[in-house]
């Protein structure tokens, strides 16, 4: 038996609740409950491990304001991954736990609940996904469950908001029943006894969604489905992106914005430092938004008319895949291949996120179990997985010369990903753990959540990326005017020209790549490169070094030593691959 006395906080009264923790198994909808309670928008998806760090928000609790923390999902308080470690550390800092439980999967979820009830912290249980129990043939006696657990149990449907009011008002009744500390087997036995009393399941037939679920993890049908899904996703991203550019953004820039800038150019006298910074070069009275490199021309055209359309289309498609629940099944199919790269199948999820932006992708490697896997995954992502912004520029600039050149860039990066993973798997000490993951049921995505998530991601691009893009264009103009780039270009000419076969000015793009890779690739546009040189430039730029945002996250997640190792690998690999391409092309 335990005795919680000295040191433990016996906070039961509602005025004492300062910090509320939302805890529960992965993929039970904690983040949706969090959004409902606090009004803070967070990214939610239908796969375990969407939330890898904690998010905080505030809610009204009676007269007081309480802090609410969305804790990463955990199956047990004995942590096995970085995300779970964060979860169990958080527990000691809270005054109340809202334990979010998947009502369609009560037995497994109760394990964590019992562990929580053994601690000295007051608990309320939110029986979430309640609307799904009926058609799954699950009948539950909530009153009985409440009695057996000794804490309030509130049925909720977080996506519609049902039960949220009751959940908030039950916080004052939260209790910490002094449950005895049990061993694992004793806990399961206790859960078995509870389940027998509160739940009965009637048999029902497979739904069509469940048949699709099964087909997705069978070798033959699964492979066909995966190839189809990925091909359709790629085509959809391409189609939506190009349509937005061709029918919306390009016309706006060419028909509405170009006359304004040309007028401004006239007013500024068509030359001078200020003209150079704002408008850039105008050749023969024609507006060229890609090559002029002024703040008001290229500085706006790159983020809005080249990158933003692809950010929109990529995150729309990714959001749909996430919310359906397909990604964990892709992980199962990819598991055998990923093991050769020193990872297991679930690493495909951070990798897919990396195709949008490497920053959340590297954070998402927290769902992997070992330090070794995280190092390999983060290194591979920052070397061989180009972000949506860079890809948009590759489509725009390289694609201009023909699809085969775009294919060359992607093909090279893919081969690098495979070979480098293979080498890292041999070289980095340790072994990769086995895949063990829960596959979420397929759900039809709700437009509201999909669009909300899309907006959050687009918004963060707008506020985080665009200032850096504008700053990069400004810095480029000033450094050009000061002649700094000229000095660098001459200094690095042997490597850039000799090894990579690019004009010596291209080094400037590599330097600017540290700020933003999309702008950097844009800087290659006025150099009049051949298609082959553009391929080399794109590949080297993608691999050479992470952008500043990714760099900061890599240091934070891997530590300085491992970051230096990763950076060494990047530079070496980029020069080797760039040199090899130069010989071939």
């Amino acid at each position, binding site marked *: 038996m335990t005795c919680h006395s000295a040191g433990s906080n016996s906070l039961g009264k509602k005025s004492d609740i300062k910090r509320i923790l939302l805890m529960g198994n992965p993929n039970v909808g904690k983040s949706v409950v969090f959004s409902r309670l606090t009004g803070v928008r967070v990214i939610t998806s239908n796969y375990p491990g969407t939330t890898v760090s904690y998010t905080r928000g505030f809610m009204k609790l009676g007269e007081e304001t309480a802090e609410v923390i969305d804790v990463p999902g955990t*199956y*047990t308080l*004995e942590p*096995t991954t970085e995300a779970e470690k964060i979860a169990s550390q958080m527990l000691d800092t809270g005054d109340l736990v809202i334990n979010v439980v998947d009502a*369609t*999967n009560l*037995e*497994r979820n109760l*394990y964590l609940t019992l562990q929580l009830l053994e601690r000295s912290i007051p608990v309320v249980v939110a029986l979430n996904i309640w609307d799904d129990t009926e058609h*799954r043939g*699950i009948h539950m006696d909530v009153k009985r469950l409440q009695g057996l657990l000794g804490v309030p149990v509130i049925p909720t449907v977080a996506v519609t908001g049902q039960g949220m009011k009751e959940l908030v008002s039950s916080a004052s009744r939260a209790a910490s029943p002094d449950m005895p500390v049990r061993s*694992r*087997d*004793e806990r*399961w*036995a206790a*859960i*078995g*006894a509870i*389940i*027998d009393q509160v739940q009965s399941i009637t048999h029902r037939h497979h739904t069509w969604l469940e048949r699709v*679920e*099964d087909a997705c*993890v*069978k*070798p033959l049908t*699964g492979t066909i489905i995966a190839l189809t899904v990925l091909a359709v996703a790629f085509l959809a991203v391409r189609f939506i992106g190009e349509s937005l550019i061709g029918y919306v953004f390009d016309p706006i820039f060419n028909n509405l914005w170009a006359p304004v800038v040309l007028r401004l150019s006239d007013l500024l006298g068509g030359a001078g430092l200020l003209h150079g910074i704002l408008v850039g070069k105008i050749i023969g009275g024609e507006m060229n938004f890609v090559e002029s490199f002024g703040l008001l021309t290229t500085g706006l055209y790159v983020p809005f008319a080249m990158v933003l359309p692809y950010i929109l289309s990529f995150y729309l498609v990714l959001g749909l895949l996430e919310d359906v629940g397909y990604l*964990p099944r892709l*992980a*199962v*199919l990819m*598991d*055998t291949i990923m093991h050769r790269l020193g990872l*297991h*199948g679930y690493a495909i999820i951070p990798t897919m996120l990396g195709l949008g932006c490497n920053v959340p992708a590297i954070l998402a490697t927290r769902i992997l179990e070992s330090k070794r896997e995280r190092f390999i995954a983060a290194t591979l992502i920052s070397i061989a997985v180009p972000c949506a912004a860079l890809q948009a520029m590759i489509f725009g600039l390289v694609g201009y010369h023909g699809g085969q050149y775009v294919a060359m860039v992607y093909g090279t990066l893919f081969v690098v990903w495979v070979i480098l993973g293979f080498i890292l798997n041999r070289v980095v000490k340790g072994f990769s*753990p*086995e*895949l*063990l*993951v*829960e*596959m979420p*049921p397929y759900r039809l995505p709700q437009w509201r959540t999909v669009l909300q998530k899309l907006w959050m991601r687009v918004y963060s691009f707008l506020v985080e990326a665009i200032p850096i893009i504008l700053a990069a264009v400004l810095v480029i103009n000033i450094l050009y005017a000061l002649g700094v780039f000229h000095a660098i270009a001459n200094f690095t000419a042997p490597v850039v020209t000799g090894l990579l076969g690019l004009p010596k000015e291209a080094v400037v793009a590599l330097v600017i790549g540290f700020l933003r890779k999309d702008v950097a690739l844009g800087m290659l546009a006025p150099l009049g490169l051949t298609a082959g040189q553009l391929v080399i430039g794109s590949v080297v730029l993608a691999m050479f070094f992470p952008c500043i945002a990714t760099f900061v996250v890599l240091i934070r997640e891997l530590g300085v030593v491992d970051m230096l190792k990763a950076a060494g690998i990047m530079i070496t690999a980029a020069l080797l691959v760039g040199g090899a391409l130069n010989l071939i092309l």
Partner: protein
Amino acid sequence: MYRFLHGFTHRFGRRFRHRFGPAGKQVTLAQMPTGQSGVVVEILGGRMIANRLSSLGIRPGLRVTKVSSMLMRGPVAVQVGSVQLAIGFGMANRIIVELERVPE
């Protein structure tokens, strides 16, 4: 009849099976044919593995149905209650199940 074992510990599970008729054939989860159901008897290997598996819902006494397995020693997908799990081949090889007799 295996609903009986539901929620009981490993030790209890064994005792019950002895009482109720002859034991079925025991294989590893990796060897179990697709579509077949069985009851988990034992998890070989360290405590860590048993801990992780049990927190996800695989433990002695529970009935599992194999949904699929990938080629080339790929992961195994199983249905446990309302949950579908993917388990790496090596781990699946350490889970001993007693095959349920297929109704004829």
